[in-house]
C-alpha cells in the first residue's frame, strides 16, 4: 500500500487505467464467454436432435426385426464419421434396461445392464454443456411407427467446442493484454508529456543547492491556462520570498546598527569618564607648569587616559568593520577579540549594575582558523541579549573553550531565561513575528553559516545557558 501511494503521478494514472481496463476486460470476457456458451448449447442441441432423428429413423425397422448387425452397423458408421460434433459411442437399450447393441461391445455387450448408461446421460431436450468436458452423453427414446422401442444413448465429442471456447478465451486474454499494454504505455507517455511542465516546476522547487529561481516568461506554457497560472503563482511566490529575504537582510543590518547604537551609548560613557580626569590633568599641568615632576606625572596620566580612549575607539571601529565584507572582516579569531568584546560589553554591564564573569580558556590559538567577525558578532549579540533579560544586580558570563573539533561559546545568565516568543528566533527558521529585533535570528544565521549548532540548556551551576558550537576546521568556515 505504501509503495502504491509513493508511485509518481505519471505511473499512477496509467496503472489506474490499466487496472480499470483489466476489470472491464474481465467483465467483457465473461459476457462473451457466457454468450458463446449459450450459443454452443443451442448448436449442440440442434445437432444432437438432427443426429437422433436420423438414427432413430434408420434404427426403427431393425429394432423391430431385432437385426443386431444392422443396428450395430448403423451406429458404428455414425461413430466413424468425421466432424466437429460427432458421436463417439452409441448404445441402444431396450425397455427392460438391457443393451440391445452398443458400439463399445467390449464394455457394454449385448444383453448387459444398460441402466447406468441411461442414468449418466442427459435428456435430449435438457442439454447442458460443461465447458471443461470433452464429451457429453445424451439420451432419447427411439420410436417406430409411434411405439417406443428403446432408449438411444449417444456420446458426443465436444472437444471442438471446448477448443473453440479455449481459442475465444485466449483471444480475449491476449487481445485484452495487448490493448492494456498499448494503452498503458500510451497513457504513460501522454502523462509524462502532460506532466512535463509540472516536473520542471517541481525540479525548480526542490533544487538541492541554492535557492529556487524565477522561471523565465518564455518557459511558461501560456497555451495551457492552468499550468500558466501555476507557473505565475510560483513566480509570485518566489518574488515574495526574495522580497522577504531582502527585508530580513535589511532588518538584520539595521539590528547590527541598533546594537552598535546601544554600544555607542556605553562608549560615550566610557570616553566621558576618563575625559573628566584628563581635563583635570590638563589643568594640573597648566597650574603646575613650573614643577617638572607634577608635569611628568600628569603627562603619564594623560598618556594612559588617551591610550584607553584609543583602545575603545579602535575596538568600536573593528566591530563596525566586521560585517562590511572588507579585508579586515576576514581577520582570524584571537584572544584580542574577546578582550575587545569585554571592553565593549562592560559599559552596558556597569550601566545595569550587573556583574560579568569572563572565562576564556587557554589554547585559543587553535581557533585562529575561525573568522573573527561572525564569532564576535555571535558572542556580542548573545551577551547583549543576556544583559537585557537579566535583572539589575544579577550575574551573567561568557565561557569559551575548545571542545574537540569545535569551539564552544557558552553565554549564561541568572535571569528568567528565554521567553516562548524569543525561543523560535534562535532555535528555528520559522518566520519571525514583527517587532522584537533580529539579533537572535542574526545569531542563528551566522552559526548556520559557520556550520555550527545552538543549544539551550543549563550551566553546571544551574543557570540558563546558550551553547554555541562551531567547527574549527578551515574548510567548514569557507
Amino acid at each position, binding site marked *: 500500500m505504501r509503495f502504491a501511494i509513493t508511485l509518481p503521478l505519471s505511473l499512477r494514472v496509467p496503472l489506474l487505467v490499466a487496472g480499470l481496463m483489466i476489470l472491464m476486460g474481465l467483465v467483457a470476457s465473461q459476457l462473451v464467454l457466457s454468450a458463446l456458451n449459450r450459443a454452443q448449447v443451442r448448436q449442440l442441441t440442434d445437432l444432437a436432435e438432427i443426429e437422433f432423428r436420423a438414427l432413430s429413423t434408420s434404427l426403427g425397422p431393425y429394432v423391430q426385426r*431385432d*437385426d443386431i448387425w444392422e443396428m450395430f452397423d448403423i451406429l458404428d458408421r455414425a461413430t466413424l464419421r468425421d466432424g466437429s460434433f460427432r458421436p463417439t459411442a452409441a448404445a441402444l437399450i431396450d425397455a427392460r434396461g438391457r443393451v440391445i*447393441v452398443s458400439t463399445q*461391445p467390449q464394455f457394454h455387450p449385448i*444383453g448387459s445392464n444398460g441402466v447406468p448408461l441411461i442414468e449418466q446421460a442427459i435428456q435430449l431436450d435438457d442439454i447442458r454443456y460443461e465447458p471443461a468436458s470433452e464429451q457429453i452423453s445424451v439420451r432419447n427414446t427411439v420410436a417406430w411407427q409411434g411405439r417406443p422401442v428403446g432408449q438411444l444413448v449417444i456420446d458426443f465429442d465436444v472437444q471442438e467446442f471446448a477448443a473453440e471456447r479455449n481459442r475465444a478465451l485466449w483471444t480475449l486474454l491476449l487481445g485484452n493484454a495487448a490493448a492494456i499494454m498499448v494503452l498503458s504505455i500510451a497513457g504513460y507517455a501522454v502523462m509524462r508529456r502532460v506532466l512535463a511542465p509540472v516536473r520542471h516546476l517541481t525540479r525548480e522547487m526542490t533544487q538541492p543547492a541554492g535557492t529556487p529561481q524565477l522561471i523565465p516568461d518564455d518557459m511558461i506554457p501560456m497555451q495551457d491556462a492552468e499550468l500558466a497560472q501555476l507557473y505565475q503563482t510560483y513566480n509570485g511566490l518566489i518574488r515574495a520570498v526574495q522580497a522577504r529575504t531582502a527585508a530580513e537582510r535589511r532588518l538584520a543590518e539595521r539590528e547590527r546598527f541598533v546594537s552598535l547604537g546601544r554600544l555607542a551609548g556605553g562608549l560615550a560613557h566610557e570616553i566621558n569618564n576618563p575625559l573628566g580626569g584628563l581635563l583635570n590633568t590638563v589643568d594640573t599641568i597648566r597650574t603646575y607648569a613650573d614643577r617638572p615632576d607634577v608635569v611628568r606625572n600628569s603627562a603619564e596620566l594623560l598618556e594612559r587616559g588617551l591610550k584607553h580612549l584609543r583602545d575603545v575607539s579602535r575596538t568600536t571601529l573593528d566591530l563596525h568593520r566586521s560585517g562590511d565584507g572588507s579585508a579586515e572582516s576576514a581577520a582570524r579569531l584571537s584572544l584580542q577579540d574577546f578582550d575587545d568584546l569585554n571592553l565593549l560589553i562592560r559599559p552596558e554591564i556597569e550601566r545595569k549594575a550587573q556583574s560579568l564573569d569572563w572565562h576564556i580558556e587557554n589554547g585559543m590559538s587553535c581557533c585562529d582558523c575561525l573568522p573573527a567577525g561572525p564569532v564576535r558578532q555571535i558572542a556580542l549579540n548573545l551577551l547583549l541579549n543576556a544583559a537585557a533579560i537579566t535583572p539589575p544586580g544579577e550575574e551573567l558570563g561568557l565561557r569559551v573553550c575548545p571542545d574537540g573539533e569545535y569551539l564552544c561559546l557558552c553565554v549564561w545568565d541568572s535571569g528568567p531565561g528565554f521567553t516562548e516568543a524569543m525561543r523560535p528566533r534562535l532555535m528555528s527558521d520559522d518566520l519571525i513575528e514583527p517587532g522584537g529585533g533580529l539579533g537572535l535570528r542574526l545569531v542563528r544565521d551566522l552559526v548556520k553559516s559557520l556550520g555550527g549548532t545552538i543549544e539551550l540548556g543549563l550551566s553546571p551551576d544551574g543557570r540558563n545557558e546558550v551553547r554555541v558550537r562551531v567547527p574549527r576546521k578551515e574548510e567548514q568556515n569557507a
Partner: protein
Amino acid sequence: MSGAGVTRRRLLVTGGAALAATNLVAADALVPLRFGLTPVFLDNDWQLLERLGAHILEATGHQVEYVQRRTYKEVVALLLLGEIDAAWLCGYPLLQHPDRLDAIAIPVWQGQPLYKAYLIAANDRHAEALTNLVGDVHAYSDPDSNSGHLVTVAQLLELGHRPESFFARSFFTFGHRNVVRAVARRLAQSGSVDGYVYDALALTEPDLVAQTRVVWRSEWHAFPPVVVATETRASPVVLALSQALFDISRSEAGRDVLRMLQLDGFVRPEPDSFDSIARLMRLVSERG
C-alpha cells in the same frame, strides 16, 4: 452360315465393347444379362463389377446388369422367378432347389474348386475347438450360407449339441466380411465365416483380420458356384456366360477380375461336387 454368324458375333462383341467404353449403346444391342449378387459373398466393389461386366460383354456381347439383394433367399427368389439370368450363390441354396437350379461354373481357388468354413474368435481368445465357444454371442453370415451357417449348425449336431441353445445369442450379419467385423469389434465373441473370404481379407484388410483368429476349420466343400435356373440351362445367354467364365483368363478384364478375387479361374462342376454340402443338409434335416 455358322462361320458368318461367328464372325458377325465377334464383330458385334468388339463393337459392343467399344461402345461400352464410350458409354454409347447401340440400338440393336443384345438384351442385357441380369446377374444376381449378394454382399454375403461378394462385396460391393464397383471396380471388380465393372471389370467382370467388361469381360462378359467382351466374351458374350451382352451388357451386364447387376441385381443386388441382401440375402441369398432374395436372390434365389429372383432366379426362380426368372427376374435374373444367373447369380453367384452358395452351394446350400443351390441344393435347396435341386430341380430348379443348376450350377454352371465353380471358381477355382488355390488350384481347386474347394473351400472351407472357419469358426473364428477374437485374437486374444483361448479357444481351440467349437465346444470352447459355448455360451457365446455368435455371428452367422446368412441363414442360407453353407460356410456361414450350415456347417456350424451341422457340426454342433454332430457333436451332440442343440444349435439353438449352444450359443447364448446369435445373429446374422448377411456378409462374411461383416462376420469378421463383428468378431473383431467384439460385438460377437465368435463367428461362422467363409474360409476363402477370410483368407482373402487377410491380404486386403490385414488389420481387421489380425484382430481375430481361426478356432476351427471344416472339411473341404464345393466353392460357391454361379447358378442359373434349370429351364435356362441351355439358353444362348447362359451358354455364352458359361463359356465366358471358363475363358475368363483370356481377357485383360477377366484377369483383373481373377486377380482382385484371388481366384485361378472357373471350371465346370462335377456331379458330386456338392455332395459334402448335401450330407450336411441331410444331417440338419434329420436331426433338426
